[in-house]
């Protein structure tokens, strides 16, 4: 992985870290869910990036799966906390 690649990973890593901070701080489920959403979105981006770095096309599918699951996950949580499930 090139320096350029490392920079990207570094910045995205900081983003991940910040979302974890919010996840820990909360202070409630919604805040944590938002943080989780951010976390997964950043992860999806990282997945795709790693697919490129490792030259594994198939990781993109993994990223897509991840995106789908996180999307549905957020919806489930949202509906759950507003007592819609």
């Amino acid at each position, binding site marked *: 992985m090139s320096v350029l690649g490392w920079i990207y990973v570094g910045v995205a890593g900081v983003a991940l870290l910040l979302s974890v901070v919010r996840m820990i701080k909360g202070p409630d489920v919604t805040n944590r869910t938002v943080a989780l959403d*951010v976390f997964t979105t950043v992860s999806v981006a990282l997945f795709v990036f790693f697919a490129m770095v490792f030259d594994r096309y198939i990781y993109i599918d993994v990223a897509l799966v991840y995106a789908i699951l996180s999307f549905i996950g957020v919806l489930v949580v949202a509906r759950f906390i507003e007592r819609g499930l």
Partner: protein
Amino acid sequence: MLREILGYFFLYFGAAFLFLGSYGLVRFPDLYTRMQASTKSTTLGAFSSVIGVGILHPDWFIKCISVAIFILLTAPIGSSALMRAAYKTGVPLDERTVVDEAKDFFAEDEKEEAK
């Protein structure tokens, strides 16, 4: 060469907004404003990153576009759901909030729910 520059531009542009989104997530005072930051910025960040990868790896371009579209399509749905859930469960608005028409908006719902 141009392709690579363009690709890395998108990539870093994305990275920057990924960072901004999560920074806003930490910095903003209430959930609603945090979501303002996170929804837009992270989505754009991821979108841009994925497109960047597509540009750097032209064989994958279409695939990357698929992923990007999916992100763009679904992110606002999630945010919207989450924000309403937050409001309904009484997550507080920041004190700087100037107007809240939601009470009025949800009043009818609550009447129905009370039944």
